[in-house]
């Protein structure tokens, strides 16, 4: 048990080192730096010596490896640095913005579940019926519509013409609707199709026939046998596509002026706010890692075979 914990710990450590190092490299090797932004050259007079002086002060003239080492040293002391632009602690900025993003993501996932579970199940259960055809067409079209485009249409329709929802910002529960519906719809087409095919796969399994032979009702078979068997592939895909979900959040946040980490990072990239970018990548990496660990755990729960094997190995 102790060995496994140590292994897991080392794995996390390796992982963190890897993503921070690679992102550090990319960020620092990319052209451009934030010195001119910091000095507000647009409005204040600055001489080239002052620019160089600041560059030296921030350590941009040191070799990348040394910079990384220094960053790592701070990181170990749980100091993620301060934003060049706002002068605030990077972590506190990210943590204040994170709840908004989480809300949006959870909202989107709820929409996704609300859409894809009924649609996917119905089209699998009534294969080739009109409902199946409609949901298939919808999901194919859904996969082809750019989310930002859909969002604009929603803003125009529900925000302006109908005035049902606010078009922007984060102002209570109601402002969550449009962005999370947009994002939710954008991702759900994948899951409708996935759930459908996964259910069909389950229904072609022998144990469904066996359950029928035992006289179980169709409802029971769906709930307790087929549906549960269909979840793992869906979860796998969820884990794998988490990255594009997080990316989708960025686009949606920009579109809806939603004050989450996505908007934060787009600004940070524009202003070359290195510590913030670095912190963002770190946090997202950790989130992806945690979610994927949960996905692994859920396998263990959903698939007793894995659970037992694990137990034997220990």
């Amino acid at each position, binding site marked *: 048990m102790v060995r496994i914990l140590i292994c897991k710990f080392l794995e996390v450590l390796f992982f963190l080192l890897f993503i921070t190092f690679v992102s550090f490299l990319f960020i620092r090797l990319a052209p451009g730096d934030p010195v001119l932004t910091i000095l507000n050259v647009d409005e204040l007079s600055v001489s080239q010596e002052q620019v160089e002086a600041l560059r030296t002060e921030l350590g941009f003239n040191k070799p990348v490896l040394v910079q990384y080492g220094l960053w790592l040293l701070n990181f170990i002391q749980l100091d993620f640095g301060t934003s060049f632009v706002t002068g605030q602690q990077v972590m506190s900025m990210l943590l204040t913005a994170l709840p908004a993003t989480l809300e949006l993501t959870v909202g989107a996932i709820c929409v996704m579940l609300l859409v894809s579970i009924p649609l996917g199940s119905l089209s699998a259960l009534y294969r080739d019926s009109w409902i199946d055809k409609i949901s298939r067409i919808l999901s194919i079209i859904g996969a082809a519509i750019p989310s930002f485009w859909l969002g604009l249409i929603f803003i125009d329709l529900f925000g302006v013409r109908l005035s049902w929802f606010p078009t922007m910002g984060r102002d209570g529960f109601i402002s969550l609707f449009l962005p999370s519906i947009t994002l939710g719809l954008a991702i759900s087409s994948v899951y409708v199709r996935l759930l459908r095919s996964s259910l069909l796969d389950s229904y072609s399994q022998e144990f469904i026939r066996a359950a029928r032979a035992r006289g179980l009702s169709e409802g029971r078979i769906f709930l307790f046998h087929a549906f549960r068997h269909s979840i793992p592939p869906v979860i796998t895909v969820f884990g794998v596509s988490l990255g594009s979900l997080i*990316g989708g959040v960025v686009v949606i946040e920009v579109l809806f002026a939603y004050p989450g980490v996505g908007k934060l990072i787009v600004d940070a990239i524009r202003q070359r706010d290195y510590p913030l970018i670095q912190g963002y990548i770190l946090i*997202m990496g950790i989130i992806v890692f945690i979610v994927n660990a949960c996905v692994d755990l859920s396998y263990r729960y959903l698939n007793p075979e894995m659970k037992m094997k694990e137990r034997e190995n220990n």
Partner: protein
Amino acid sequence: MKDSFMYLSIQKKYRWQAVLLISFTIIVIIACLYTFLYLRHDPTYTNLDRRLEGMGLAHPLGTDHLGRDILTRLLLGGQQTIGFSLMALGVALLVGIPIGLISGYKRKVIDRIFMRIADGFLAFPDTIVAIVLSGLLGPGIGNLVLAIVMVKWVNYARLVRSTVLSESQKEYILIARTNGLSSIKIMRKHLVPHILGNVLVMASLDLGKIILLISSLSYIGLGAQPPVPEWGAMLNDSRPHFQSSPELMIYPGLAIVVVVLITNLIGDYLRDHFDVKKEVQR
């Protein structure tokens, strides 16, 4: 998930779809070729006196906010968008397939190294990498392609690797080994044909995603540069006119939807096609 098919397993049903798909694709290709061979309008010619004109004989779809012909730009944009997506996909395939093959077949050290690298890459959310990378390297479609390759190759390497891992357990590979084939020959002769189907399916489904990714990055200003008429960039350009001339956003948006739809349909079609065969084999 072994067989995830969208359509009936009856092959006859595919035929009309195939016809539809092929004709769609041909239309798109012809349209793009048309502009390539014969441009009625210079896509970068601005004429501020004729901005935001509606449909008409001279400009079938009207003009944009700088008085340029929308149809020409739309078609040229098709070449850009599709061309660059294909390029990104192609490079990702060229990188991913060999690595996946080697790491799946050779296992041991190579595989372990690869798996670590792949894990690392997967830890970065792909869209984020693309955003950060193209944001940092500066806007420009070349950088965007590079960013997409960086995030996509891993998927192919993994797919190939897992196919190879499961295939190389099969007895025909054992027999090939007893028959003295070298690793390279086994890979080339027995494994490559096997993975191509899967890769093709995944690639055609990916194409749509890449098109969407390129245009959404262009939309938030990280993609193509003006006056290149990339569809996402066109959408971005037309954003200010969303209220007054919504058609400026409708055309490129619809173009994206249609092309992605086609690639998705092709992908689904291929997937079913390959799956049906598998069914028979079982």
